[in-house]
């Protein structure tokens, strides 16, 4: 198979295991490319991509933009806080206005779950979901799994714990779907206030104790405490959160085995993980960032080739 089964990347939920492997294999190639002296390839020379960010983002936007530029795509950027869009123009109108300038692909981040799915039904362009509310963030999950594969050779059979705010996290949900598709076992860990009540019904177990979770796992994915996403208080203070769910070097060293520590960034140093953990060789946080570009190049390349294929 050399083609994705989908025309959009709206979520991991909507793609197959074979799609994921194809993206990984394509990313392997692009990872080699971006480590060359000349990091650019002409693959998307005649493709125009709009990055539409209806919610703040720095690293995801930069990563996509870099991926697009390394593929020689033409890139336009649009940023708007959701509030200013809400004032007047609808999402469909905003996007159609941009598409009327002959744009082929849309990379969109949006605060509402399902925004990408909604858009895909009403516009004529290939959509990459760069995060939609608490729904999915598929490229993050792909790069996370890709990084696990790189470090541990394979994802299948591995034990992964996702720690932190699962309730508000698109990263958690996409990771769960991707890890399950690739044959990993997934646990979530965090204060019960931040765990969806029915999480076990989607094949994920819950562990309330961080040490037990870490003793069980091969990989710990430490999510950021997203205070900006919480409209009420789910725990009394960051201090208390850290006491129960923060990973420090002493805890890591006491496990009697070497686990891999991941973080989707940006890190709150001293909250989810301490600096000495973040900077340790067990942490693969910067590898994740680097792999992010390769994964996004792969996704854009594979989706664009479907556009070209459809047009021919």
């Amino acid at each position, binding site marked *: 198979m050399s083609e994705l089964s989908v025309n959009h990347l709206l979520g991991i939920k909507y793609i197959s295991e074979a799609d994921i492997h194809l993206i990984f294999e394509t990313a392997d190639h692009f990872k080699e490319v971006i480590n060359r002296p000349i990091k650019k390839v002409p693959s998307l020379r005649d493709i125009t991509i709009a990055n539409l960010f209806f919610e703040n983002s720095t690293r995801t936007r930069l990563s996509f933009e870099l991926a697009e530029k390394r593929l020689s795509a033409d890139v336009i950027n649009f940023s708007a806080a959701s509030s200013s869009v809400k004032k007047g123009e609808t999402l469909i109108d905003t996007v159609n206005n941009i598409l009327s300038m002959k744009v082929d692909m849309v990379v969109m981040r949006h605060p509402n779950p399902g925004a990408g799915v*909604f858009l895909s039904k009403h516009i004529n362009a290939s959509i990459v979901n760069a995060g939609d509310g608490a729904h999915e963030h598929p490229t993050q999950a792909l790069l996370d799994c890709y990084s696990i594969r790189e470090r541990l050779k394979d994802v299948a059979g591995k034990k992964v714990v996702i720690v932190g705010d699962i309730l508000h996290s698109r990263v958690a949900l996409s990771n769960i779907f991707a890890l399950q598709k690739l044959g990993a076992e997934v646990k979530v860990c965090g204060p019960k206030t931040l765990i969806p009540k*029915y999480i076990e019904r989607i094949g994920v177990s819950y562990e309330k104790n961080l040490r037990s979770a870490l003793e069980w796992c091969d990989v710990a994915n430490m999510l950021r405490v997203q205070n900006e996403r919480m409209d009420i208080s789910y725990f009394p203070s960051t201090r208390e959160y850290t006491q129960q769910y923060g990973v420090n070097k002493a805890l890591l060293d006491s496990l009697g085995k070497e686990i891999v520590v991941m973080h989707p960034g940006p890190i709150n140093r001293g909250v989810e993980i301490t600096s000495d953990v973040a900077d340790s060789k067990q942490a693969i946080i910067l590898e994740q960032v680097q792999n992010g570009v390769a994964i996004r190049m792969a996704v854009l390349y594979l989706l664009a080739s479907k556009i070209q294929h459809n047009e021919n």
Partner: protein
Amino acid sequence: MSLLLLKSATIVDAASKHHLKKRDILIENGVIRKIGASIKNEKAKTVTLENLHVSQGWFDSSVSFGEPGLEERETISNGLRTAAHSGFTAVAVNPNTNPVNDSKAGVQFLMAKGEGNPVNLYPVGALTVRSEGVDLAELYDMHSEGAIAFGDYKHPVENANLLKIALQYAQNFGGLVQSMPMEPSVARKGVVNEHVNSTLLGLKGIPSLAEELQITRDLYLLEYTGGKLHIPTVSTRAGVKLVREAKKKGLDVTCSVSVSNLVLTDDRLEDFDTNYKLLPPLRTESDRKALLKGLKDGTIDGVTSDHNPIDIENKKTEFDHAMFGSIGLESCFGALNSEIGTEASVAALVALKDRFGIDSNLIEEGSTAELTLFNPDHDYVFSEENILSASKNSAFLGVRMKGKAYGIYSNKKLVLNS
């Protein structure tokens, strides 16, 4: 003098001696003059329809028509036309208009708009001023003008003492108080049922706990105050259980269920289709089964379409931004009949009349003719062409159903689908 003859109509009216019999019905000046195996009358206008069934006129205890103020969603005249074509001879119109119907003037406006229509329009007055949940509205004044019940539509009464006072106050004139079964601090900003699907979709959930807590509170209040409470649109297994126990205790409580909750589940949400964004939300199969059982054993008193037209601008948008609600009049009978059968459907669509103080007219000689004409075997897929409402937001689009209204005879007028 007008004469109308309905030929070969199967009468579905458990209280009538003609129940389930095929009869000719002669109507003279709005009164059933004669019911017989074969009536001949050359002066009468004769109606012959395939597989014609006739029942008492159906009543919907919760419809919204947007007027005044929200005419882009629906007008009263087209709303009543939709009701008539869907088989309803009586509708209770919610106060969720702009301004909110919280005064005598609002009730008078609606009554005047409904005057002379084949469908009887009964206003539901707001329980609190502007439905804000702070001060009691002038319930007696609205009652005197024709409001048949009081409630703030989908706004729960947050203040327990206010509901207590409302239940006490309305007793003086036998007023029926409605309370939306949803505890707002638990429901919060939820948009769908909290369960597996909300987890998979990353959508904020409304736990069934919110309904359970509010019904529990309201029943305790009712026990304390006495009075008449109607709980509109129960949606959970726990909610049904609470009402069942309260009825056993002898409390004067009734409840309804929305046909959407009776037929559909939150599995429909998969695609973020905003037509399934409803309040109460679509729940699980387990809840649905409990609702069916509750309806069957009489815990749930009747079925409403919970008809709520929403303009496309408020539906064709991101799921979080879309408004709650679905139209329901047009699909109500078909969806219900497919699920629970004809006799039970008819019973569920007339049962709440008494509770809301509306006369029931038996299908007997000498009775006022207020009839629904329908074909319970009409098999079709509900699609946009079946929608008569100004807004097209139906949760039943694409659903295969059996049963369709031909129309009504009511207020001396015959309304038939073309």
